[in-house]
């Protein structure tokens, strides 16, 4: 009987389907969402956004390839249904939503499909986070979050400089420090630092196997680190600008990189917090 089933053409096809690698299924799923990737690729190529997403994409691919031997042959049904629903939503979004929102739905759909074949206990949130960060989101973040971040940065920097004994006041996103005007304009907003910090958090969490709930609990601390870091960077540079006639680009770069290293080191510490001690 078993031989008869195995020899039946339908059964043979079924067997073939079941032996297809989960990565191949994911590849097919990704192909079904190609309009979103085409849009993201075009955005990447037209120069309207920094190509930071490539780093997140590479990290994501490395993570998936390394986990490939552990992926389940039989996906979990609940997650498959969720992935299908998200795919449908992403497709509908092509006609009704801005492309970026559609692409976010598409990467979440793919991440959900990945979740359906991942073994138990593996982190999913950092993987989904990396998938979203792989999209060209920096310009949009700059558009929607740039101004509030600039105002907050300028305001707290003003307090910091006042505490340091400098005459500082804020008007919009412009600061007058020691009588000298310094603008906290779009490139100063800290949006890039936001992306870097969350990228750092996702990569560390994904590769160190941090559980989703633990990661979620630590994300607010990441946000606080970014804010503190950007205020620190801005305050130091504004103080320098207010006291010198011209601050060189190398100093700008140097201060920015040092603060970024500190913030990312803090993020690594937060994401690994408690684990190392227990080790």
């Amino acid at each position, binding site marked *: 009987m078993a031989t008869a089933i195995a020899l039946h053409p339908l059964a043979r096809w079924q067997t073939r389907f079941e032996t297809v690698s989960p990565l191949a299924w994911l590849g097919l799923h990704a192909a079904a969402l190609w309009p979103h990737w085409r849009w993201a690729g075009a955005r990447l190529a037209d120069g309207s956004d920094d190509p930071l997403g490539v780093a997140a994409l590479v990290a994501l691919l490395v993570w998936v390839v390394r986990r490939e031997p552990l992926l389940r042959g039989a996906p979990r049904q609940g997650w498959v249904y969720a992935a299908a629903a998200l795919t449908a939503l992403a497709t509908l979004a092509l006609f009704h939503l801005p492309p970026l929102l559609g692409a976010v739905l598409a990467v979440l759909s793919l991440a959900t499909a990945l979740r359906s074949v991942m073994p138990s206990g593996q982190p999913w949130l950092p993987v989904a986070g990396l998938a979203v960060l792989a999209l060209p989101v920096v310009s949009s973040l700059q558009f929607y979050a740039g*101004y509030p971040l600039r105002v907050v940065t300028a305001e707290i920097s003003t307090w910091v400089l006042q505490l340091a004994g400098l005459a500082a006041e804020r008007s919009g*996103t412009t600061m007058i420090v020691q009588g000298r005007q310094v603008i906290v304009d779009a490139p100063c907003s800290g949006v890039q630092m936001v992306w870097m910090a969350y990228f750092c958090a996702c990569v560390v969490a994904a590769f*160190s196997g941090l559980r989703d709930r633990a990661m979620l609990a630590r994300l607010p601390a990441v946000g606080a680190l970014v804010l503190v870091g950007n205020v620190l960077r801005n305050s130091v540079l504004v103080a320098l600008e207010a006291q010198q006639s011209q601050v060189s680009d190398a100093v700008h770069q140097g201060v920015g990189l040092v603060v970024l290293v500190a913030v990312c080191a803090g993020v*690594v510490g937060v*994401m690994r917090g408690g*684990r190392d001690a227990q*080790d």
Partner: protein
Amino acid sequence: MSRPLIPYQPLSRTGRVLWCMALALFSALLMLFWSPAHADDSEALKAESPYFAVNSSEPGTDRLPLKSTSVDVKIAGVIADVTVTQHYRNEGQRPIEARYVFPGSTQAAVYAMKVTLGERVLTARIKEKEAARIEYQAAKREGKTSALLEQRRPNVFEMKVANILPGDDVAVELRYTELLRPTDAQYAFVFPTVVGPRYNSPAAAADNGGAVGGAYLKQGVASNASFALRVSLDTPLVVKEVASPSHEVMVDGLGSTHAAVSLKPTDKPANNRDFTLNYRLAGDRIESGLVLYRGEGEGDENFFLAMVEPPKAVAPRQINPRDYIFVVDISGSMHGYPLDTAKVLLRNLIGSLRPSDTFNVMLFSGSSRMLSPASVPATRANIDQAIRTIHEMGGGGSTEIVPALKRVAALPKAEEVSRSVIFVTDGYVSVEAEVFRLIRQNLNQFNVFSFGIGTSVNRHLIEGMARAGQGEAFIVTKPEQAAAQAERLRRIIEAPVLTQVKASFEGLDTYDVEPLQLPDVLGGRPVVVMGKWRGAWEGRFVIEGRAADGPYRQVLTAAPNGRGPSALRQLWARQRIAALSDQEALEGGSTQKAQITELGLTYSLLTQYTSFIAVDQRVRNPNPAQTPQVDQPSPLPEGVSDQAIGAEVPSTPEPGALAALLVVLGVVVAGVWPSRRRRKE
């Protein structure tokens, strides 16, 4: 609940030190060898800021202050004839050479120059530019007082006067004519008094052979020179309204066909912003008509000018989807009042879009940044978001308009969408030719409407952009004008009032007609045609087209026989030179040089290839080699700060994306790698 334990071996002390050293070395190498993703202005020169430059060992004694400027304007019909007289006096101890840059109208046809030195009058001749330069240099070396007037840009002139002896009072008289083209039945005469400082990109500086604009007085420092301006208006219809939005004026003869306007005495400096005079005629009509001029001598050419009032705009019909890209200059020269005005303008422009329209905003200075990756629908939420962001932008940096324009041209666009690009800038750049070329190359992509904001904007750039982009130019000199100009743009772009426009003549043998092809007529703009004619003084001018409510036809008959205004000669030649210059900008190089030079010499017009030269035949300076050059400083345009001439507003940008990413990757690897190594162990 226990966590899954990850094997971990802490680094030894030596390991930590080595790790820190490696990180420090990595950062140092980055700083040394990696060039950050720089904005376009990182290598750019700042706008020239020489202030009052005296090339002399005794700067306190070599002075040539401008004492006075007197402007006499005679407007007859739609033609303005302007005489500008400037008095200088050498108050120093030695003979000097003076260089002075000053503005003119973009439409000006400069046709005469006269230099008066005490009792001696030197009438300038038009010459080919290089020949004039050689003659000037020779006269200068020989110790003869001489004057050279050159065109730096179509609306910026440079005059040099050599061998001005101590105590000399020099009067330079310049004459030009221009055509006044009404908009919405309102006529405007503009006299620019100061050249705004122009930002030069490195490429443009090389092309221009130096920066445009001369020395500047510091912000808030007024010129000591007096300024007087008189306008006499002679029109066939009664003058109804006369007002100046820029200056306080006294008006006589309102309600008659002859009016006189002069500046009201005031303590406020009058020569640091454009003088603008607006007037309307009775019945709110545009002065339509066919004006003929017959040459004075046998064989002289005859010229005509036809101006036709278009039909009034009608309610907009069903129109194609429209997309608007607002490109806003936030460079240093826009800081303060111009940017504030731009914000008011944008609030009005974006706020008046329909929900079916889409829009995007690009802010540019040294680099450009789109506020949204792609155009977004003009919903209330999107408009509010854009306005909030625009409201808080500050000015700083250079004016890299060409990269911004290239980026706009590269934006993808659906075929059925009609795209309009609205530039908002003071135009303080000197890359006009490249900008015009880029716009012309992308005409199938968008129309260009340009808003010049400031008290003394670069009208050549603003108007040239609109001309190249088949759009319209708008000048906003005060925040309170922003709403009206935004409304005007909205009315214009809603629907063209006349399409498929054709002009023809009956009973008049015409040739060399300008323009060769008539564009669609947008709201409130008259059709203007100029050219030459042969034969008898008679004929009719017929304009035909398709208006919103059907075919349109208007016929004009020639005014009674007579001689007509001679200014038509220069106006026609100026129009032809402008067309040839546009063509040359499109083709690159000096392809139209011969034709432009010939026109300049024939009609005695200042062009980019012809100059006015006046030389006194007496040797007045026995030691001309010791003559220092003095730059006569101009006041900065009102509302323009020192930032426009080099003082950038500092900011605190984040480090370059690539360097930051490499650093973060280093930290990430450092954070993940120890735990993996320990797990293996």
